[in-house]
């Protein structure tokens, strides 16, 4: 991309196997960068893993595309997909009450489900965090059960409230910030997914596994207040911590 980045593509679909390969190369590069001596990676500014590709951003005053490709392509050939032992499991509270879910009624109508079925199907699926992007801390998670899949809204909203749980196509997400958005809003999550004051500002990372825990309106409000007051650590919603990468 231009004079200061290139993208290594592993495919062009949403597929956990692709995500694992992207993650594998990203970690191989990160570990090569920590090694002493010349690894050919000086001038690399940052890497951006997505569903299906890894973008390397570099400083053309310090290196160039050819030199970086020479250093990275051998790693791409031998990097293993990310091992399952490194995966963290989260259980995030989710309020699916109608007051927290502006699109619940319309969505249940489109999907021909009742609200309880929709909530329980959404909550009882384990999602993979494919990537972070779009907004700070915004995690693209999948895959939704077939019965919950529908295209994006034809008219995107100009204002999606922070904390909204949303679905579109095969994916689900929690909006960490108020923003425009075209996904269907089916609930609210009280856990802030991004806090610049934390040592790792984004709560979730690519490769994590996430399930949702249905809570009522009152419990949602209580959790939100307790987290804001510092009485509950958002990290406490992580059930298992794998080995650090």
């Amino acid at each position, binding site marked *: 991309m231009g*004079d200061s980045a290139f993208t290594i593509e592993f495919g062009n679909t949403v597929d956990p196997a692709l995500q694992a390969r992207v993650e594998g190369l990203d970690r191989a590069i990160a570990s090569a960068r920590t090694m002493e001596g010349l690894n050919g990676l000086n001038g690399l500014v940052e890497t951006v893993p997505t569903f299906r590709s890894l973008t390397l951003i570099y400083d053309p005053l310090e290196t160039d595309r050819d030199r970086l490709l020479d250093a990275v392509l051998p790693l791409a050939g031998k990097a293993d997909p990310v091992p399952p032992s490194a995966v963290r499991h989260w259980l995030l509270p989710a309020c699916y009450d109608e007051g927290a879910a502006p699109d619940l009624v319309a969505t249940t109508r489109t999907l021909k489900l009742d609200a309880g079925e929709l909530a329980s199907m959404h909550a009882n699926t384990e999602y993979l965090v494919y990537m972070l992007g779009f907004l700070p801390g915004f995690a693209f998670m999948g895959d939704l059960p077939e019965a919950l899949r529908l295209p994006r809204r034809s008219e995107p909203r100009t204002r999606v409230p922070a904390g909204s749980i949303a679905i579109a196509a095969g994916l689900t997400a929690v909006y960490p910030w108020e923003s425009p958005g075209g996904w269907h809003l089916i609930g609210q999550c009280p856990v802030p997914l991004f806090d610049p004051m934390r040592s790792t500002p984004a709560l979730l990372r690519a490769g994590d596994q996430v399930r949702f825990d249905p809570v009522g309106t009152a419990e949602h409000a209580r959790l939100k207040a307790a987290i804001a007051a510092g009485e509950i650590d958002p990290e406490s919603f992580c059930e298992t911590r794998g080995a650090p990468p």
Partner: protein
Amino acid sequence: MSTGLKVVSQGAYASIQDMGRIGFRRFGVPWSGVLDRRLMRIANHLVGNEETAPVIECFDGGQQFAAANASLRLAIAGNAVIEVEDDAGRRQIASWRSFILVPGQSLRIARISPGRIGVLAVSGITVPAVMASASTYARAALGGLHGRALQAGDEVGASAATAGAGRMLAQTPVPAVGAIRVVAGPQRDHFDSSAWSTFTSSDYKISATADRMGVRLDGPPLGHLARYGHEIVSDATMPGSIQIPGNGLPVVLLADAQTAGGYPKIATVISADLARVAASPPGSTIRFTAVGAHEGERIARDEERLTRALLEAIRTARGEGFDLDALYSGNLIDGVVNALSPEQSR
């Protein structure tokens, strides 16, 4: 002594920026940062700051500032019409050189043209870093003052000006002309050769939807190849990415660009030319021309040499026409003085 610069009016738009919040795109955090790093480096050099110190990036003009309770050393890089007003009257001062603003005076950026972006450096500016940067990214309330753009009533921390001569740029940067250079891809193959030739041979007009996140263009729409459609599985975007959404009209992403997107990207503006896109006012037209990635890298290195030459040629202003520091601190002038030296008055 620590004091501050008061924001009397934020004008069209003004925000605190620096080199940007680098290293967090993987978490969805845009870089932000100044749209034109050369302007930041020049302005900071003129006031004696580190060249990557936070600056106040101003759009279009209308901004007004005052020294809180001590004199401040300031400089504006960019083609700004600057006025200083006090009891003695109003006078125009030049950009591309440092000056002292004393309490009781008001500094106004009347307009910025050509180029729409002016960068104000303040000697000894202090803005707390959030995730290693002071850059404002309002959508997630990061950086700047209170995580938002500047507003009337804000005060930006700074040091009182110390004695010493002002500094000026020996020669103002030569404005770049010609087409905006792009490198094809990463989804160039989603467009046929006729779309590519339209893209690289047509005038595109900067629309009214132009901000720090990106610029929407009006012009001939570019059709996506039917077998790909107009959406992709999201991959990384960066400042300079040119997305082609369903309506076929290019969107050039800038410093506040989102980190990933689902529209095909036909090409990427090279870093040397991106500030020109950001500085093009709505209604003006640009054209694109293709260069190879290696050529883009070479241009980046040439541009850096040019910037360094400009910075190395900064000299003290004493003995060069008006010594603004002396004039202002002595408050000797009234009325309008055109402090442009001959080489700057073109």
